[in-house]
């Protein structure tokens, strides 16, 4: 099982300046596994993700990616190993057109090995984007931007996709669609780490889930078990 781990992070600490945000978080993600990350606002979910990706400079702990030590790696090195990121707030490039946003993310080398998510397939998955290929990223509505960010992540042919609040600000139909896409990604055998405020949906779509509270893991286990647990509601404040 151990060699089947895509990500093996142990005892992660992170700081913003002098404030200590993560206090020894450990997280494992297996090949093709979907993991939900839950917790109330400000508990450190996004920080954990950004730390794993190498975006938080002040960090400590051990991060293994495909068995390789990435504890001190630069963000682009992490990304090149096949980790794609859909950040909260979307992060589309406002001065690039929809098409350019997608094309610049494509990595021909990775596509040759893993393939799967071509430009055409992204366009099929998000017909709304197909209508607007020539528009600039900055001119899209919030929901369109969210779709673009997911599409862009898929264009890198990832083995692990990290979605931070991927459904924020989307219409119910689109949310449903995004969950469908997440299911497709899952079915493709791509591992995912999902953060979303709709914890029921998260649990329904993941194999396992982890709950963060004040920078520490307070609960984790298989999704169905958690769904049934009483403790979960307390930690999520519902």
């Amino acid at each position, binding site marked *: 099982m151990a060699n089947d781990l895509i990500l093996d992070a142990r005892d992660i600490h992170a700081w913003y300046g002098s404030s200590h945000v993560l206090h020894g978080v450990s997280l494992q993600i297996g090949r093709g596994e979907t993991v939900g990350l839950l917790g109330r606002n400000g508990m450190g979910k996004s920080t954990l993700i950004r730390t794993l990706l190498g975006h938080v400079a002040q960090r400590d702990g051990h991060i293994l990616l495909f068995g390789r030590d990435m504890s001190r790696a630069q963000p*682009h090195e992490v990304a090149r190993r096949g980790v*794609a*990121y859909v950040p909260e707030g979307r992060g589309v490039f406002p*001065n690039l057109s929809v098409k350019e946003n997608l094309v610049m993310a494509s990595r021909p080398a990775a596509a040759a090995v893993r393939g799967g998510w071509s430009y055409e397939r992204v366009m099929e998955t998000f017909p709304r984007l197909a209508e607007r290929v020539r528009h*600039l990223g900055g001119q899209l509505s919030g929901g369109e931007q969210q779709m673009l960010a997911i599409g862009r992540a898929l264009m890198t042919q990832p083995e692990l996709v990290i979605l931070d609040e991927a459904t924020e600000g989307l219409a119910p139909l689109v949310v449903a669609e995004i969950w469908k896409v997440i299911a497709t990604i899952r079915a493709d055998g791509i591992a995912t780490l999902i953060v979303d405020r709709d914890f029921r949906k998260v649990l329904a779509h993941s194999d396992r889930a982890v709950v963060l509270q004040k920078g520490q893991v307070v609960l984790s286990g298989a999704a169905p078990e958690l769904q049934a647990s009483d403790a979960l509601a307390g930690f999520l404040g519902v």
Partner: protein
Amino acid sequence: MDFATFLIQCLNSLQYGLLLFLVASGLTLIFGIMGVINLAHGSFYMVGAYMAFALTQPIAATFGGGFFSVLVAGTVLAVALGYVLEWAFYSYLYQREHLQQVLMTYGLILVFEEVRSLLVGDDVHGVNPPAILAGALPLGDMMTYPVYRLFISGVCVALALGMYLVFTRTRLGMMIRAGSSNREMVQSLGIDIQFLYRVVFAAGVAIAALAGMVAAPVSSVYPGMGNQVLIICFVVVVIGGIGSIRGALLAALLIGFVDTFGKVLLPSAAGVLVYVLMALILIWKPEGLFKAG
């Protein structure tokens, strides 16, 4: 002014504008894309001009090459210089406030000027155009037009076209533009932004130095030449719209015309005309003629 003179003045305007564009394009590249207000850009122009002067002898002696070998060698050196400078001075500026960059690049201007003085002295030097371009075309009965100035215009146009294509048509161009808006996300797509920026910066330096080298035969080589060109290039960049190559081209030509005809028709106000033009354009279009992107 008769019609023939008018036409020749137009040619002059065009050529001056193109030369300005050549210097300003590197500035707009670094400025719009990397978000660095690079006051030292004029210094790179000066470095280029001094290279055209200082390299001629050694290159002729060792390789037997002429002006064009100097251009190649100078460009290579400029790329190296840009690469090293980015690594040493600029790489930690991106996260900083813009004003810190102003301070740093201001410091660099002083250093460049003094190092130049230590290495080459404070004298004025001339550089000869290559023999094949040394001639002049007769225009009208009195005027001739130097072939070398046409060559400059040609270089400028070719470079403008090249940059435009790289920028809009290639993945590299997209990455560069993306980097200007969201560094973190570019990294998350597996792009080594540090390296990318180093390359862009080196290219910007090389363009400025190339402009200096190409301009050396017509401008001569003198202390402080960089600062003189810097401010006018900022004007070009700002009128054109930051980060827009197309805008820089148009603005440079506009300034070429205003400056040229201003000198002839309104000599007492010639100095201020360019700035009046800039103020008017920015009041009319507060983001320059072309918004980047």
